[in-house]
């Protein structure tokens, strides 16, 4: 079809400014996976229900499957790939998921990691119920959510403890 609309968008992805020529019909999910090859961003339900495609846009979690890529112009996007340290190390949240066996098939994990990352960014203490509520947009179909909540809670408490030691 000759009337396909293309547009160049410029945005920050995992700390780097990127310009990509996109078909305006693309979801952000499509651009992140297929143009930028960020395969941590999973294609799940594609209707904004499962949360597998969660990425942070300006620090807040969004389902990238129901976000038009053109809207990402000028925005700051963070995916799991962006959590990697300079030496290739994984983040404390990812390690906590491993330690707590919060991963089974792994498909929901990147989305859960990103939502957890945004929850824990404010350094506040949340109850398990509050954590459950804040993670309610991410579904895991393998197992229960127990280990996932354990992982997020552990890292939350660890960070709070570290901050308190630092302050004292």
């Amino acid at each position: 079809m000759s009337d396909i609309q293309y547009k160049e968008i410029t945005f920050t992805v995992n700390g780097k400014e990127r310009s990509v020529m996109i078909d305006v019909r693309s979801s952000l999910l499509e651009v992140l996976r297929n143009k930028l090859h960020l395969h941590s961003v999973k294609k799940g339900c594609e209707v904004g229900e499962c949360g597998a495609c969660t990425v942070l846009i300006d620090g807040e979690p969004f389902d990238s499957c129901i976000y038009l890529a053109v809207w990402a112009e000028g925005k700051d996007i963070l995916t799991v790939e962006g959590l990697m340290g300079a030496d290739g190390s994984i983040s404390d949240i990812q390690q906590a998921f491993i330690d707590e066996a919060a991963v089974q098939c792994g498909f929901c994990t990147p989305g859960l990691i990103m939502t957890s990352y945004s929850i824990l960014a404010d350094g506040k203490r949340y109850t398990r119920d509050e954590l459950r509520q804040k993670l309610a947009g991410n579904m895991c179909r393998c197992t229960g959510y127990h280990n996932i909540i354990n992982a997020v809670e552990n890292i939350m408490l660890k960070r709070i403890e570290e901050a308190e030691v630092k302050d004292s």
Partner: protein
Amino acid sequence: MKYDIKKLYEAGSLDEAISLLEEHPEAKIIAGGSDILISVRAGELAGCTLVSIYGLDDLRGVTLETDGTIRIGSLTSFSNIARNEIINKYIPYLGEAAGSVGGPQVRNIGTIGGNTCNGVTSADTASTLLALDAILEVKGKDGYRSIPIKDWYIKSKLVDLKPTEVQTSILIPKESYEGYFGNYYKYSMRHAMDIATCGCSVNVKLSADKKTVEDVRIAYGVAGPVPLRATTAEAAVKGRAVDLDMLELFSEKVKDDINPRTSWRASKEFRTHLMTELARRCLTESIRRSGGIFQ
């Protein structure tokens, strides 16, 4: 992976959005897209032309105007409403309603304007806005128009918004919320990522001694094809003492106003039962929040 969209126009300003809608009368407005994009994916809106207003940051945010009116920009997301200071101070029950939509990600993208323009009865914020006598402000080529929310809903999925108009703000006048306390109850099968089987929003204004119901407003989602007020029940208890008889009468009278249907989510009978019970519970809670004393 790509949406079946024929053409996408991105408005850079409100006036540009209006002229794009004038030029392309077949186009639909897309705000956050959590309804539109799902309908495109499902095929209902496949091949549509869209005018995106998502980039119009002027339509975001909550402000308190000098006359006490709370102005909510139509593109304000549910999360921003749920955590907004003005909302939480004056109309926390609207924050409760916004916080009950979908899940965190959906609340980040979904807008309160979209929640009222889609004309859907189960829209979580719609019943509270109806119970607050909100005013919807829209702009077309001839300028602004204000529509009381009671006149906004025409029928299921149809509201009083002309194809070339854009909803810009939702206004809550001071007399609508001052002295009122309320709450919203969403009944759904799951506590997250679900659509309301029934939503009930009540707010009440008690007399100075907290013993008499001066005014009460109740609105439902899913009690009919569009959000509706139970005006018979409201009228029946206005001026009545705060007591259990009043509560009983209120929940009983609700039946005169509601007209729920049977759907795969719930039967008419179950919804009717829910609605009478929720009227009682929501009014009790609203009275408790008002510091009311049961006689």
